[in-house]
């Protein structure tokens, strides 16, 4: 049975929440994860599963460094999870591509990377522009329209549904209390402890970590924090299982360890999680066939839409409340890529009760006020 008092209550049982909870449990904290039920709009069940570095950090160079830190930690993170659970999340860091179907696209890509690398304080993550011949050596099945692309050796991918399952298995093994159907309605601080009112009763904890994705927007102001979000919808098309042909993930297309090909990366303003825009799927599929013509006759077995967790400027938010000490936000779009950081870097900070500003100060939501004032 669940006890009613904890060191830390993590709000949100998606990838960000469970990665944080696992890290907290490793630090010896008594942790409860408060989650919604099976009908939750859950990005962790719909994402594209890249552990991705290239393109990250334009506009906030520290985000590139933060992403590389997680990418570098991912191998060890996956290995530890395997030792604890026996489950392999199939992390592969084979390097990834962004492919261009015209000289104009390639030039635009090169310009973005140039602007990114010209920022002061940026960590060089060795993304290189390749011509068609160089790309074809690594991706022999590209179509005739592919003129080149950018390649970053740090990019990789995982099986993200298995990652989700593995982290849930791992927190259970470490004694974390997981409470589904406990949507948090209100959070108040009473004396030294937080009281979290849920549809199934009250939970008390010394600290609170808000890891509820887009719902952080609703929850953060209850504890003197803010999380300005801008959810958007993405769609994914999945093929039948194929023999391995793609050794490197492409930002819009990857072959999973199980053989299916996932095609994605669309963006729509709609936040209806049940809707699907067929034109968007068709465009994704058409582009996939131009990149890899051998996909032309392959059967599509699934397609879905999912709501992206997205902050208003796309960068993560990590904060500790000034008015409600002990309340933290752990909020970001890239819950897969940054899972290693949340487990191994952010969770220990929360366990100690203070964020390490030398690492996460650039990601405070205070930056939104600067922009508004400017």
């Amino acid at each position, binding site marked *: 049975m669940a006890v009613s008092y904890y060191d830390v209550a993590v709000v949100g049982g998606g990838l960000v929440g469970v990665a944080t909870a696992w890290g907290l449990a490793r630090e010896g904290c008594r942790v409860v994860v408060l989650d919604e039920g099976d009908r939750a709009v859950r990005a962790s069940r719909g994402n594209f599963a890249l552990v991705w570095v290239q393109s990250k950090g334009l506009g906030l160079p520290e985000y590139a460094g933060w992403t590389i830190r997680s990418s570098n930690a991912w191998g060890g993170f996956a290995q530890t999870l395997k030792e604890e659970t026996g489950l392999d999340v199939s992390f592969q860091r084979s390097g990834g591509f962004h492919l261009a179907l015209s000289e104009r696209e390639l030039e635009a890509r090169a310009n973005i990377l140039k602007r990114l690398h010209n920022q002061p304080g940026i960590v060089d993550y060795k993304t290189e522009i390749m011509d068609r011949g160089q790309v074809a050596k690594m991706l022999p*099945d590209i179509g005739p329209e592919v003129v080149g692309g950018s390649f970053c050796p740090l990019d990789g991918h995982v099986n993200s549904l298995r990652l989700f399952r593995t982290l849930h298995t791992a927190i259970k093994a470490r004694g974390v209390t997981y409470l589904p159907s406990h949507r948090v309605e209100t959070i108040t601080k009473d004396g030294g402890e937080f009281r979290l009112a849920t549809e199934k009763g009250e939970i008390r904890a010394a600290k609170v970590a808000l890891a509820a994705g887009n719902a952080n927007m609703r929850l953060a102001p209850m504890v003197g924090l803010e999380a300005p979000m801008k959810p958007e919808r993405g769609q994914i098309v999945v093929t*039948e*299982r*194929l*023999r391995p*042909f793609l050794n490197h993930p492409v930002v819009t297309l990857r072959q999973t360890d199980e*053989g299916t*090909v996932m095609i994605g990366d669309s963006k729509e303003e709609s936040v209806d999680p049940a809707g699907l825009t067929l034109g968007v799927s068709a465009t994704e599929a058409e582009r996939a066939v131009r990149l*890899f*013509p*051998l*996909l032309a*006759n*392959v*059967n599509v077995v699934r397609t879905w839409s999912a709501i992206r967790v997205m902050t208003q400027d796309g960068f993560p938010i990590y904060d500790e409340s000034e008015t409600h000490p002990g309340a933290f936000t752990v909020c970001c779009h890239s819950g897969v890529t940054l899972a290693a950081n949340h487990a191994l870097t952010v969770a220990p900070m929360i366990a100690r009760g203070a964020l390490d500003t030398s690492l996460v100060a650039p990601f405070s939501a205070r930056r939104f006020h600067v922009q508004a004032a400017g």
Partner: protein
Amino acid sequence: MYKRLAEAGTPVAITVDGKPISARAGDTVAAALIAAGIDHCRTTPVSGAPRAPYCLMGVCFECLVTVDGVGSRQGCLMPVRDGMTVETQTGKREAGR
């Protein structure tokens, strides 16, 4: 196990894995495989277990075969044609065929 109806259609020549079998006009590929006594048409991409046509109405996807070089066709939804080449599938399909 299966017996053709007396009023089965006229003969149609198809091959399965290179071997000629005698199908009848009006047969689906799946029906022709069953009538020829072929006990499985593919192995699964996950466990490699053998699979044979099952629902015969386009729902179960057990009867996937390669037809005229294109993989993972539903045999129960394709009428046989003279000269058709059918291949059984092993495990995961190869992209591009």
